[in-house]
């Protein structure tokens, strides 16, 4: 039932007056959004099998993503495509009551073409690629009886229950053109420019009830629906240095990502004073700038058939600009993170078959959670397991031209605050097929 359709300013005033206390529990989150678009989803079965340590080890069209200078390694015309499958499980425990949500999502991950120009010396390789770089698919639920809320005067500490859920589907893809060339016998450089596009649909729901004195019940039911298209651009630069024929060093600089969100937002909120819902609908255009990222890596082939690789990726997420820095009371909602990546690949001498293994960290950058029992004040979450992932993979080369690779990634994180904890487990499967003419 939707009884009122008011303009936005009137609606906000009415909302404030009608649900003054309960609204305080969600104010925190309105100012401090937890952006799902800051984490790389991963790309390419070979790279993922090697723990994403591909800044120096990349030798295919995924170099448009990991290090465009590595495009110069490609010697044959390559056409490549890949798919990914995501399985997420999120367990939340609130006052000892556990809720579980899970999702499955299969997507086209990449399509790429690399064309090495014929050269008499050196290398010049042009590549175009579609890479699905970010994922916003999520499913989240927490629900529990709450023995003691602090609602503030005149209610004080009361008992109640609440339920919060998020259902979101979407992502960002990069349409990339990249160029890599050798500028000396041992040094390659490269650049890639990406047009970003995507969309995300998100449904947020929060409901709560509080038992207050005199014997009465306060209700809150809040629904927020966002539907946004995302556009933007970014660019990256890289260099690759060969250390003889046994090692490589790589450096990639990803420039900031400039994103524009054009969307529609609908908010429905139950007003207990009129026993009805108040609706607000409007369009929005938001600007987000994600900060610059640095990646360094090395790879080595010291033993015949065995390639080892290691990367480090650094981003200072405090520099996210989303209508200004995302912080409250000088406390940044995000932190700087360093992702470490390690991988190995072994090629068997008796068949064109290779196996891979790896490990990487992807620290959770958003470090705040709302205090459940204290009107949603932000708290620094304790990271019990901060984004650790194990990877495995294999590949087979058919007829010296068709390469089929698969990879599996397993990991997650755990974080907690008093009376609330989250454990997220992620499994990803990547399949990539490449043909070289």
């Amino acid at each position: 039932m939707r009884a009122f359709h008011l303009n936005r300013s009137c609606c906000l005033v009415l909302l404030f007056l009608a649900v003054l206390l309960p609204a305080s529990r969600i104010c925190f989150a309105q100012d401090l959004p937890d952006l799902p678009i800051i984490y790389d989803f991963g790309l390419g079965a070979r790279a993922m099998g090697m723990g994403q340590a591909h800044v120096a080890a990349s030798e295919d069209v995924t170099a448009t993503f990991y290090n465009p200078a590595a495009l110069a390694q490609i010697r044959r015309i390559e056409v490549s495509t890949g798919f990914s499958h995501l399985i997420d499980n999120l367990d939340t425990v609130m006052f000892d009551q556990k809720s579980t949500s899970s999702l499955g999502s299969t997507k086209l991950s990449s399509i790429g073409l690399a064309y090495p120009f014929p050269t008499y010396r050196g290398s010049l390789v042009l590549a175009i690629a579609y890479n699905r770089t970010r994922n916003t698919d999520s499913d989240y639920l927490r629900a529990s009886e709450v023995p003691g809320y602090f609602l503030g005067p005149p209610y004080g500490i009361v008992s109640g229950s609440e339920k919060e859920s998020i259902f979101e589907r979407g992502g960002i893809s990069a349409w990339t053109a990249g160029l890599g060339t050798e500028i000396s016998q041992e040094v390659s450089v490269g650049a890639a420019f990406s047009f970003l596009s995507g969309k995300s649909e998100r449904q947020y729901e929060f409901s709560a009830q509080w038992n207050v004195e005199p014997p009465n019940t306060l209700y809150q039911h809040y629904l927020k629906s966002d539907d946004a298209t995302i556009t933007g651009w970014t660019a990256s630069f890289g260099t690759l240095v060969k250390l003889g024929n046994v090692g490589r060093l790589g450096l990639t600089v990803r420039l900031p990502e400039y994103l524009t969100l054009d969307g529609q937002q609908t908010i429905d909120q139950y007003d207990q004073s009129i026993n009805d819902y108040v609706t607000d609908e409007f369009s929005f255009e938001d600007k987000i700038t994600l900060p610059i990222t640095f990646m360094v890596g090395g790879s080595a082939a010291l033993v015949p058939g065995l390639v080892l690789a290691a990367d480090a990726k650094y981003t200072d997420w405090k520099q996210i600009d989303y209508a200004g820095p995302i912080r409250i009371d000088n406390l940044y909602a995000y932190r700087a993170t360093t992702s470490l990546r390690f991988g190995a690949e072994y090629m068997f001498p008796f068949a064109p078959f290779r196996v891979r293994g790896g490990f990487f960290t992807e620290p959770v950058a958003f470090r705040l959670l709302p205090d459940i029992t204290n009107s949603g004040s932000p708290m620094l979450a304790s990271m019990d397991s901060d984004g650790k992932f194990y990877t495995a993979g294999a590949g087979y080369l058919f007829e010296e031209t068709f390469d089929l690779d698969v990879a599996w990634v397993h990991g997650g994180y755990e974080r907690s605050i008093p009376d609330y904890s989250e454990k997220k487990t992620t499994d990803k499967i990547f399949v990539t097929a490449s043909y070289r003419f």
Partner: protein
Amino acid sequence: MISRTWAILGLLLLVLFLPGCFTVLKHPEGVTLVDEYQNRKSCMDCHQETWLYHYDPYWYGSYYPGDWRYYYGRPWWYDDYWYYTPPGQSEPVERGGRHMWTQPGLSVPQLPGGGPALMGQENKSKQQSSGTQPAPESKKETQKKEEKDTKRHMWTK
């Protein structure tokens, strides 16, 4: 912020393309490729090491099993680089002689001093009675290939 980014972008593109003197896309005009025995040599051979041009010496190739060398190491334009026959010309035809069902001619290895190697009498007689003629040497007549080269809406609660 954006203008500064574009400046960095332009600067890096300059860095990318200005030192492009190492990568050579086009063969110098007026200089032809020459044959040396059965191997095609380019003008570059006269100046620097040719092995740098055709294969990447710093590729992990020496550590890869053979099946991967074609996939990773051999440039696609390299396939007909050496034995390209221009339009209007055909491969030379060897007439006469025996080509089908013949075995390679065997000869007695020579010691550094010039004399025949010490071999068993049996092998020696086998070689003499084989009657196989060595394949005639051929020299490919090929020519240079023409290269053608203020508010947050999303993700809030």
